[in-house]
């Protein structure tokens, strides 16, 4: 019997790939397909999970794009029936409205690609240049653990310190991109990678 008990409501401000077929092919050329799953912090752990994520992020969730019930769209990437990676995007407050940062990850949570799906800043060209995104390749959540998203600084040693901003006039969007990346990695770790290690299904 299907239970029709209604769980907490969630708002509509999520972030998904505008054109997943093209983007998955581009980010994982070896892939043959992908599976879309929808998750939210409220659904997967509620306030307790939210507090854990905020602690890992080093900042509170706030604004339109960061609520416990935002629906996250996560993509599991397949080659045949073999899971080979993940793609996930997050909304982040930017200099002009919102920006959207997508990461392609391997199964261990290492970044294999970084890109902006939405960034309207007139200096966007410099931040969208592939050379900017290449600075993120190979980084993972452990590298970002020392990045203070509030101060915009790396505390201690971290490969994140090597990421350079090619557009000083877009400093706020640069820092927003780093915050979005750390947030994205934490959410992927909570919703996908840890669960995969534990043999849980989404």
């Amino acid at each position: 019997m299907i239970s029709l008990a209604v769980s907490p409501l969630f708002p509509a401000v999520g972030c998904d790939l505008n054109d997943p077929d093209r983007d998955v092919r581009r980010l994982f050329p070896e892939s043959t397909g992908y599976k879309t799953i929808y998750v939210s912090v409220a659904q997967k752990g509620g306030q307790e999970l939210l507090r854990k994520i905020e602690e890992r992020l080093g900042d509170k969730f706030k604004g339109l794009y960061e609520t416990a019930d935002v629906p996250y769209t996560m993509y599991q990437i397949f080659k045949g029936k073999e899971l080979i990676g993940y793609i996930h995007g997050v909304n982040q407050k930017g200099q002009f409205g919102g920006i959207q940062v997508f990461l392609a990850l391997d199964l261990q949570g290492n970044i294999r690609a970084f890109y902006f799906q939405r960034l309207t800043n007139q200096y966007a060209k410099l931040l969208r240049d592939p050379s900017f995104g290449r600075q993120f390749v190979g980084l993972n959540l452990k590298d970002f653990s020392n990045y203070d998203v509030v101060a915009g600084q790396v505390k201690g040693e971290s490969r994140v310190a090597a990421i350079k901003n090619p557009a000083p006039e877009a400093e706020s969007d640069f820092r927003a991109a780093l915050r979005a990346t750390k947030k994205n990695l934490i959410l992927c770790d909570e919703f996908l990678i840890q669960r995969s290690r534990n043999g849980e299904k989404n």
Partner: protein
Amino acid sequence: MFKKTIAWTLFILAVLPCLAFSSSYLLFLEAQGIAGYSTAVKKAIFFSMSQMEAMQKPSLGFDYVQRFSGASGDFAVLAVQARLAVNADGDKTLEPQLYNAYLKIKTRSVDIWIGHNRPKFGLVSSLDTHAQLLQPLSMNGLGFDRDWGVGVEGDYAEGNAGISLTTGSGMPLYFKGNFFLSGRYSRGILNQDNYNVGISVGYGRILDVAGYHLMSETPMEFAGAGLDFSWLKNNLEHRVEFMAGTLDDQGVFAIFWRTGIGLLEEGRLKLEAQPVIVFARKKTQTQLSVGASYLATPDWTLRAMVQYDRDMKDVRFVIQAYFYKGIRF
């Protein structure tokens, strides 16, 4: 009535088993209140365009997306979006409205859809106007917001292309010798490149409809082409569309331009202006609209519009309170 019953039955049969796919669906509830004043009729109105048009009117609705996947990934998407709207003018009636009602099959190269969806013609085919007060050319009689039929589309590295064969009857489903064959090719990925340019062509024998109202039993021959351009820069948006062709053996021409600016943190407030000129059936329709949209919370949006229609000699003021939130079972 029979066709509506079929549509609702298909939806229910599709939704109930799909609820077992606990992570692969999105279900949103929607509610909107609409009120305004028209200087032409000198009274309060409870719609944004006209009582006959499908939107916007006070309504309750839902938006459902279900993804189907196998061991190697997604292979299909079911989308159903519907409202129960109130016709508050005169004898109050309820109007069931079906927007999205399609099944999309995903292949390695293209997506194939069947049902009620956006035909591939014009800016409206890539613009989500479901909740908005300002509407594109499809609501001025050029193209369709939704239509019944089949379509094929695919994304490629620089853009998107698709064709559709639909009934040319819009919201209702009629078979009176009507059809609409259309296609759109676009270059530029708006969110990534901050621009998109589209070229559309369409031909058919289309019905004269306003919402669910059939204005004439006789289809009209239509042949037309359109060029649309969208551009984002900083907090500015511009959308322009030109359309030209023939409708019922008479020339038709339209210019549409929407410009907007996002203000406040997270772009919560958007101000827009939209002049539209449509020349069709030997008459010129000129409209100038200005609108404001404020995202009060993630669930509530407040909108307002002032529209001047030169031919109707009407200035209308419309406000909307819009609620949209997801639920999970």
